[in-house]
């Protein structure tokens, strides 16, 4: 197996790493102590130097995001740790929250110091009960030891941290929806501008970072931005947590250096395709990206630029592997059901179009496809993408369009069976309840 740098998962297997004592014995909170002696603007500079890009999916440079926050606006600055990890195929943040919460808290403290924020919040998805309790306990321990609260490490820096529990809504991972939810409302995305850095939570300057992004901060400040930059590849520095799932022998979370070849990742880290079967396709970035066929992944590397150039996206690296037996009609219906179910209902194209597409895919799956269905789906998708308030509409169409484009014969076959009135019996991936959504 290839030796990757271990920034995030270094201590993850230590059974007591989730406790303050355990984490501290391995160096936790030593970096924030030093950071508090550094000028906050210099901390931001260091983060900029590191080249780290947001690990939540969009890949926006973190240092730049921080530098958008106006200084001395007269309003408090809020820091939000986005732990709403709901992208299908993603479970990396859960691992950190469960097993190394102090790494996250320390990263948040560094960010808070850099941003001069006195209040932060971990917004964790409601389904993560166990990670919630671990992280909550860690916050309590940090408070008890004076690492949170007033005059942290004898400085005049005060910081309060809250863990907030979501209640089941994918869209709350979108940063403006998350803020709405945190304000006690439905998680419906806001129109931008204004951007959160200027007017976010309670109309105050707000920075929202992913768990993994923040967990990298202790390393960056401890070792310097340049050390981080030296890991990985040019425009994608550092390591990346990949949540590997699907038809592989060893699903799990892996920390890889950015730029690692995908084929090798599947063969070595993931232990190859299960049951001796062949690879059919990979959805590399969580479900909201273009699917890649087996031939397409032969030469591709796992970093932001390589995957973009290959026509897909690293996203949040929710790496879903599908073997040769996978029925793509069923796979795309599965995702269509997910997106229709999770559409917040606010803007027209996503609210109506998402469900429309799901209904067409359901029809095709159940042997009632029509000749014009595929062009219709393509057309409807084209009118959702780019026309919605948030990125949900833009991204939900990616798996639909790429799957019907890259596996056209499977759709043709299903629709053909329907037209001929000879629908083959098959095992469905999706349970369809009578009349239920």
């Amino acid at each position, binding site marked *: 197996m290839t030796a990757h740098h271990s920034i995030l998962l270094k201590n993850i297997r230590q059974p007591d790493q989730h406790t303050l004592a355990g984490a501290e014995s391995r160096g936790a909170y030593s970096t924030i102590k030093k950071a508090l002696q550094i000028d906050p603007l210099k901390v931001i500079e260091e983060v900029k130097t590191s080249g780290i890009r947001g690990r939540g999916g969009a890949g926006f440079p973190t240092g730049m995001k921080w530098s958008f926050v106006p200084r001395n606006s007269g309003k408090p600055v809020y820091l939000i740790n986005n732990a709403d990890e709901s992208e299908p195929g993603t479970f990396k943040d859960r691992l950190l929250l469960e097993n190394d919460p102090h790494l996250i808290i320390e990263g948040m403290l560094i960010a808070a110091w850099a941003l001069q924020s006195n209040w932060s919040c971990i917004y964790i998805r409601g389904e993560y009960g166990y990670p919630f309790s671990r992280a909550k306990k860690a916050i309590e321990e940090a408070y008890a030891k004076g690492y949170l609260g007033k005059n942290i490490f004898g400085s005049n820096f005060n910081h309060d941290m809250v863990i907030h529990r979501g209640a089941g*809504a994918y869209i709350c991972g979108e940063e403006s929806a998350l803020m709405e939810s945190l304000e006690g409302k439905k998680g419906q995305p806001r*129109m931008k501008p204004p951007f959160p850095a200027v007017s976010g939570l309670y109309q105050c300057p707000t920075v929202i970072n992913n768990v993994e992004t923040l967990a990298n901060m202790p390393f960056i400040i401890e070792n310097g931005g340049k050390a981080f930059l030296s890991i990985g590849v040019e425009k994608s520095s550092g390591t990346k947590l990949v949540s590997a799932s699907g038809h592989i022998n060893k699903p799990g979370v892996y920390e890889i250096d950015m730029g690692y070849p995908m084929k090798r990742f599947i063969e070595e880290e993931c232990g190859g395709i299960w049951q001796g079967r062949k690879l059919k396709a990979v959805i590399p970035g969580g479900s909201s990206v273009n699917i890649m066929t087996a031939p397409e992944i032969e030469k591709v590397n796992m970093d932001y630029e390589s995957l973009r150039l290959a026509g897909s996206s690293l996203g949040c690296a929710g790496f879903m592997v599908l073997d040769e037996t996978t029925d793509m009609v069923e796979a795309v219906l599965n995702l269509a059901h997910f997106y*229709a*179910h*999770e559409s917040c*209902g606010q803007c*027209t*194209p996503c*609210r*109506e179009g998402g469900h429309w597409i799901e209904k067409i895919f359901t029809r095709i799956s159940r042997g009632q496809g029509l000749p014009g269905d595929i062009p219709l789906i393509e057309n409807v998708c084209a009118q959702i993408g780019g026309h919605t308030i948030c990125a949900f509409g833009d991204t939900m169409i990616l798996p639909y369009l790429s799957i019907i484009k890259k596996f056209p014969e499977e759709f043709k076959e299903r629709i053909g069976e329907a037209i001929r009135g000879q629908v083959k019996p098959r095992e469905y991936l999706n349970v369809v309840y009578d009349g239920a959504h």
Partner: protein
Amino acid sequence: MSGTNGTQTELVTLTIDGKVVRAAKGSTIIQAATAAGIEVPFYCYHPHLSIPANCRICQVKVKNAPKLMVACHTQVAEGMEVNTHHTSPEVQAAQAATLEFILINHPLDCTVCDQAGHCKLQDYHFEYNAKPSRFIENKVHKVKAEPLGPTVMLDGERCIMCTRCIRFCDEITETSEIGMLNRGDRSVITVNPKKPLDNALSGTVVDLCPVGALTHAKWRFNTRIWFTKQTDSICPGCSTGCNVKVAERDGEIVQVKARLNDKVNKEWLCDEGRYGFMRFLPKHRIVTPHIGGKAAELNAALLEASKLKGQAALVLVSPDLTLEEFSVLKNLVDKTLKGAQVALAYRERPLSKVEKILVSPDYAANFRGAEFAGLVSGNLEESYAAALQKLRSGAVQQLLLVGERSIPLPDQDPALIEGIKKAAVSVGILTDAGSAVAGALKVVLPGRSILEKSGLLVNRNLRLQYTDRVVPFPDGSEPEWRMLGRLAEKMGAKLTSAEDERALTLSYLSATKQLSGVTIRQIKADGVCLKSLNAATSTAGSQTGAAQWS
């Protein structure tokens, strides 16, 4: 124009469909386009509500932007190049798609929908899409005919989730009765049964609803809108002077809608005004003159009425006459009833928090007009109370009532009726044959309701507006100004040579120094502010806030 305040608005120059447009910095594309006469369709946008940009039909192309932008939310910028559906096929496609999306779960029940004929869904569909839907799946079914409160009914399936009603109740009335449940295509608006939509402006949400989802409980299934005559007018309920559009059929008012006027009522209207419009039209009309309770010839009645004498007379005036009528009355008093005591029926009442957003505390639509005409001044409420007291005491020998609302709730004030009966000469130009006042007067002359007249009104904030006749008037009735003119003739004076209302208005405008150059068209547009016209001459108001006119 002089008189604008010092701060200069910064302008930017952009092009919309190739047309060069100047717009205020910070304004939006939709505002710039509308001002330039370029129509951009919209559902969720409202100039006086927050901007959720959820309907997506106002998308336009902005050069160098990676995707289409919503015109309601995107601010103008120097050098911006905008293309709307008039010039961009991409925008046309997006608009057609938005309409198709909106309609996939819509019941398409125009044939039984009250909104048909004035529905933005119909209008835009015909204008921007007009293609059969490609949607062949089952539609989502939602709640039908659910009352949201005493005044408003919801058809959940027609709702397009624009959230205008929700935002109105959140941002304007701050009562937050309406919410949207569920998510995705199962979204539906609703109220909590313990907190129904029951505020003083509740009917406004029906006006704001761009489709047929919200309808007036009172007016549902009344008539098709194309069978009605619709008139732009002013609500006479109080001195706010809300701009309204009134639909009339066979003499009945079948719907009242708020009209957008940024400077008066935005697009809001109170329920009392809206649903109470008919109260200005008494059931039993006075259509013939009466002397001593018996029908009489007009000439005889006028002769009898002309026995009114100057100094002893008390003239009580309804506050919902037109400005021109107040002017004619002033003329009559000056020429024939010199020294008479004139009192305008002005009363105030306490208002709820929501009412205060829009409603004025008076029942006196045009009291400012009476002040402007120089008919009354000072503390109107006190003078009126004193005048009524005098009438009750039996000390009034000569009485002239001008307009139905010159006396308040007479049936509940027997002393007033007794007072009227004691007068030697008592004349009223009235409309309600059923009132005790009409029975107590010596002479009754048929008048008209404000809903049957056209003319000028001045609102509480000194905005001159034009009220237009919304219902036909009954045969035999005369507007007060003309009746007053005839009466004056019997007393040897000539008040006006105008033949009809329009001529009266024009002659009033040209004869009034402060209004020289003001046209009816200008007044009809969104009113004319008398404050700015009289900035130099007016002084601070009295206790009722009335301005003094020099």
